[in-house]
């Protein structure tokens, strides 16, 4: 069932992608959550009877219209990850000069709220006069006491590739900057956030310097009034997503059971991406005198070395080689994009050429290992290359055929291309008149998915001109009953809720819709529809990551699960904002 709904003037545009959720599903393992934005606290508590608790907390939405709704939800630190969203990415300047030179990229959770990022505070609930005042080995009994938060170690692919962490407070400008953690000179007794007093609530900047996973292993500690030292370790995980934009195609295929995947590697930073989690960006003009347009080098091999980070695929799956007696082929079965695509190896043998149509000959054959050459795009624009991988037996019969594996490429068009660039590319790809796709609120192919939504869902293979099942199911997939999956493209959607922005929303009656995790207000978290959800997790309805692999890119697979057993039917849709 598809519903078309159109609103004007910067209001939300409804998509028509409704996914009926028929029955709740009990998951085998506890799902994990991530937070891309919203106001949360690192909450540190001590009670003389119960001891320590340290984790993450947030406050359910409060409003003047509903005074008294004031629930603080506590989440175990290991139940969620903080993923640094696009608006945290900056270039270092004087604020970070205590640990970085100027001009290098950083990802900073800001001390002051910036819409579209996390607003991460530190909150302390300890009794007055339970602790002495001080840090390290130096304490007095003056005042109400305090605790401190020290950094013990930092592990994960982020620090492994040299990523640093700095935490600091800007202050008022007159008071000196207060530095917490600084891993640029190693981790030692100076890496602490100190003098956290009873009832304190404060904010620090948290800046990371490389993509990857950061397990920040910390310990909250203090000295009780009787002289006893007490402490409590806990770990918070932060993810800095990889850009996922590649200037070379270093590709491979994996086969884990029946699941084929087309893998793209960036060896220079040790990342492997599954096909929808990266974007090939060709910017070099063609060096072949017979071909106009842009070129990109490719290397295909079937070695599948493990890399430090895996995005969109697990390490086990990615390193699982397809082995067939008759070899493996990768065939280009569909090209959507302006102009033509040609692939030639170093001896100028043409492997793939769309100029004469596509057939089984437009293939790479991998019985002999690595193939190296160049991929050419004759016209600037966005190109969707759909491949099928086939494994052959000794008699040359196909014994395993993959689903369509979509590789998105931009010939001189960046991953974060604008709506205008996208519309122009598809107009040329399909020979439409100029301007046919110029209206983001329009819907050229009549599939009730607006052009703006097709633009945002290009990552999943959406096509504004051809309505076919693969383009719809590429955008929304109902992999299992009770789940609704979709892809977010954070190159385009900065999560600031300004256009272009993608919102999932939820309804039980197809009349009133509620946006899930809209990111508005202090929280950026959904109002809980009732009490605490299943498995003890606080988010009753929330957009969550579909995590395969240990790391992320700016192309993220997300899902929404409605675990409630008292809902006979739930409907989800995707909406977008045009201005």
């Amino acid at each position, binding site marked *: 069932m598809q519903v078309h709904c159109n609103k004007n003037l910067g*209001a939300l545009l409804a998509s028509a992608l409704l996914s009926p959720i028929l029955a709740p599903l009990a998951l085998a393992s506890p799902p994990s959550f991530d937070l891309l934005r919203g106001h949360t606290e690192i909450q540190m508590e001590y009670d003389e009877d119960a001891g320590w608790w340290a984790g993450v907390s947030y406050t359910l939405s409060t409003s003047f219209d509903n005074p008294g709704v004031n629930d603080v939800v506590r989440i175990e630190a290991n139940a969620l990850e903080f993923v640094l969203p696009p608006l945290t990415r900056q270039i270092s300047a004087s604020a970070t000069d205590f640990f970085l030179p100027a001009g290098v990229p950083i990802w900073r959770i800001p001390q002051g*709220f910036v819409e579209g990022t996390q607003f991460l505070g530190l909150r302390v609930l300890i009794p007055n006069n339970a602790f002495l005042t001080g840090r390290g080995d130096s304490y007095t009994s003056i005042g109400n006491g305090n605790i401190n938060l020290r950094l013990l170690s930092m592990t994960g692919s982020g620090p492994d590739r040299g990523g640093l962490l700095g935490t600091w407070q800007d202050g008022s400008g007159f008071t000196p900057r207060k530095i917490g953690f600084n891993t640029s000179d190693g981790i030692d007794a100076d890496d602490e956030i100190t003098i956290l007093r009873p009832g304190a609530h404060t904010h620090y900047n948290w800046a990371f310097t490389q993509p990857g996973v950061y397990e920040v292993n910390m310990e909250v500690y203090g000295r009780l009034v009787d002289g006893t030292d007490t402490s409590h370790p806990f770990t918070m995980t932060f993810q800095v997503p990889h850009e996922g934009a590649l200037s070379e195609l270093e590709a491979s295929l994996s086969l884990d059971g029946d699941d084929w995947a087309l893998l793209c590697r960036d060896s220079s930073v040790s990342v492997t991406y599954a096909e929808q989690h990266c974007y090939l960006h060709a910017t070099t003009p063609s060096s072949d005198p017979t071909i106009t347009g842009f070129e990109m080098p490719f290397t295909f091999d079937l070695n599948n070395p493990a890399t430090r980070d895996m995005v969109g695929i697990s390490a086990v799956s990615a390193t699982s080689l397809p082995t067939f007696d008759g070899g493996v082929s990768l065939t280009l079965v569909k090209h959507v994009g302006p102009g033509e695509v040609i692939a030639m190896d170093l001896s100028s043998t043409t492997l793939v050429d769309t100029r004469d149509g596509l057939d089984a000959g437009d293939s790479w054959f991998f019985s002999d290992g690595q193939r190296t050459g160049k991929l050419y795009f004759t016209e600037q624009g966005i190109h969707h290359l759909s491949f099928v991988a086939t494994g052959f037996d000794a008699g040359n019969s196909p014994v395993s055929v993959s689903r369509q594996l979509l590789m998105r490429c931009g010939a001189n068009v960046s991953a974060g291309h604008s709506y205008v660039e996208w519309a122009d590319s598809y107009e040329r790809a399909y020979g439409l008149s100029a301007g046919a796709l110029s209206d983001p609120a329009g819907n050229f192919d009549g599939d009730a998915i607006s052009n703006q939504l097709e633009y945002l869902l290009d990552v999943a293979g959406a096509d504004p001109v051809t309505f076919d099942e693969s383009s719809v199911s590429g955008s929304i997939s109902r992999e299992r009953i009770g789940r609704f999956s979709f892809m977010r493209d954070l190159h385009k959607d900065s999560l600031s809720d300004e256009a272009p922005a993608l919102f999932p929303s939820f309804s039980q009656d197809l009349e009133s819709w509620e946006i899930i995790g809209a990111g508005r207000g202090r929280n950026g978290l959904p109002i809980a529809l009732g009490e605490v959800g299943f498995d003890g997790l606080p988010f009753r309805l929330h957009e969550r990551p579909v995590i395969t692999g240990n790391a992320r890119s700016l192309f993220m697979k997300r899902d929404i699960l409605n675990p409630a057993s008292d809902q006979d039917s739930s409907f989800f849709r995707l909406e977008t904002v045009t201005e």
Partner: protein
Amino acid sequence: MKKALDTSLSLTHVLGLSVTLGFSGSATAALFTSGHGDFAVGLHDGEFEFGYHLGEGDDTATVDGVIINDAEYEADELQVRVNQSVVVPVGTDPALLSGTGATEGSALYLISQDSDGVGSVILGLGTEELEQPAGVTWSDVSYTLNGSTGPGQFSLYFNDGGTFEFGISEAEAINTFIFPAGGHEERNWAFTETGTYVLDFTASATRTDGAGSVPYTANSSFTFVVVPEPSSTLLVVFSAIGFLARRRRS
């Protein structure tokens, strides 16, 4: 011995005086002295309100010595105590000096954006009560300082890693700024002298839904009571005692 007693009585008396210095508020306004509050706008029953929202979640606020949470106050129901100060260092960024009206070597009284809320106020700008369910959008909120009374100059600014963004600067005649709906941010609120300030603000924003756009505006006066930090008050007291003692002996 009698003289010593007289001195000690005088000490108590002067200390008592110093504690009440600067608390010159009206009898009906309560004093917000520490914890978390927001300079808040919201829409209730069709009325656009511009006042305070104090305390949220585990972040309480203390008003008249009582710990409260998630409470709404109209602007004239509260006075905000400012009790932290710095001596402006030589070599301070000139942008900060000109924006706050402070001079090197003198004291500047602040509600700091990185205050931890213990013993002092944290004050933010809060517009998250401007709810935006599906189909509803609020414009940015515009705040204008129409006028003020007080012994010194007021400024409101944000330190973003060494870049100072002044929303209000009386010293530089900046009297209006905007802030997005649905947001919340801590700020620095600076005053160049102790005493009581009354700041007359207007807040405006427009709400748009399927039926059209409706502009809202509200005027409110906010009172800040700026006092020296407790330690500096004590110094004043001791020097006065020294003077009194000398007078008695002679």
